[in-house]
C-alpha cells in the first residue's frame, strides 16, 4: 500500500502524477524532451540510459517500464538485459558505453564524473549536447526513481502491462497517460 492516499489503479509514477497534476506536467515534459523528442542519440539509446540508471537505483517500476520502451525501440529485450547486467560487454556502440559510464557516475553522485570520462566520451564521438543530456537523464532518473519508491507506489509484476506501456511510450511519448 502506498504511503499516502494515491488514487487507486495507477501503477508506479502514474500514482504520484494522478495525486498531484501540477507537478506531473513539468515531470512529464522533462521526460518527453529527454527521451522522446528528436535528438542525435536515438530514443532507444536514451531509454537504455534511463533503464540502466533505474536499475542501479533498484527501482522496479522504472527499470521495467523504460526497459520495455527500450526493447520496443530496439526490436527486443536482449540488449536491455545485457546493458543492465554489464554494459561494457553489451551490443551497443562505444560512444554509448562511454555515456553509460558517465550516467553510472552521476547516479552515485555528480562529483564522480571526471575530465577523463568526458574526454573519453568525446573521443568516441559524443557531442556536448549528448554529454549534457546523459548527465540530465541520469540525474532526472535519480529523481523519478526516488519519487516512485519514496511514495511507496503500487508496482505490479505484470510483464504484459509493462510491454503495453513501452509500446505507448514509443508511439506517443510522455505527455499523455498510457492508461
Amino acid at each position: 500500500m502506498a504511503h499516502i492516499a494515491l488514487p487507486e489503479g495507477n501503477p508506479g509514477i502514474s500514482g504520484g502524477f494522478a495525486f498531484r497534476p501540477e507537478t506531473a506536467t513539468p515531470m512529464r515534459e522533462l521526460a518527453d524532451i529527454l527521451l522522446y523528442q528528436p535528438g542525435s542519440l536515438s530514443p532507444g539509446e536514451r531509454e537504455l540510459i534511463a533503464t540502466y540508471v533505474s536499475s542501479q537505483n533498484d527501482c522496479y517500476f522504472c527499470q521495467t517500464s523504460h526497459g520495455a520502451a527500450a526493447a520496443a525501440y530496439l526490436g527486443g529485450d536482449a540488449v536491455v538485459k545485457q546493458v543492465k547486467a554489464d554494459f561494457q560487454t553489451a551490443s551497443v556502440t562505444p560512444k554509448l558505453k562511454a555515456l553509460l559510464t558517465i550516467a553510472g557516475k552521476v547516479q552515485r553522485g555528480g562529483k564522480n564524473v571526471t575530465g577523463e570520462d568526458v574526454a573519453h566520451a568525446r573521443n568516441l564521438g559524443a557531442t556536448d549536447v549528448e554529454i549534457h543530456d546523459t548527465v540530465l537523464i541520469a540525474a532526472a532518473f535519480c529523481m523519478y526513481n526516488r519519487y516512485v519508491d519514496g511514495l511507496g507506489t503500487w508496482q505490479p509484476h505484470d510483464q504484459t502491462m509493462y510491454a503495453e506501456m513501452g509500446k505507448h511510450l514509443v508511439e506517443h511519448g510522455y505527455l499523455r497517460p498510457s492508461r
Partner: protein
Amino acid sequence: MRGPHTLSPGERELIATYVSALNECYYCQTIHGAIAAAHLNGDEDLVKRVKADFQQADISGKLKALLVIAAKVQKGGKNVTGEDISHARSKGATDLEIHDTVLIAAAFCMFNRYVDGLGTTQPRDEALYRERGKQVAREGYIAVSKTYMPAKAAAR
C-alpha cells in the same frame, strides 16, 4: 517551491537546502540556504542549524518529521517506512505535504547531480548568493529565470 502551500516557502527551502547539503552540492545548498534565510527574516543561523543537526533546530516537530523523510529519500526512496509516515502524520503533516517533501527531496537529488555532474562554475562568494537569495525570495524562480533564459523558454 513558491506556489500557495501549507508548508511555507521558507520551510520548503529548508528541505531543499538540507538535501543539497547531504548531497554535498555547494552551489545548491548555498543558494537555497540563502533563499530560505531570506524567507525566514534573514535567519542564516537557523539554516546552519538545520544543516548541522535539524533535530536540535528551532523548527516545528512537523518539519523535523518531514526532514527525516527527506533524508531517507536522499539515500534512496525505499528507505521511507510506514513508521516515518505515521510519525509525520501524528505531527500534523498532510498527504500533500508528505508528497511534496518526497518530491522536493527527489528533485534535489536531480538538481544536485546536474549541477555537479556538469562541473558547473560555483563561485565561493557568500554575498553573491545572499543577494540572489533575496531576489528569488522576492520575485520567484520563473521571474528570475527570465534574466538568463532565452525569451521563448522563459515565456512559457
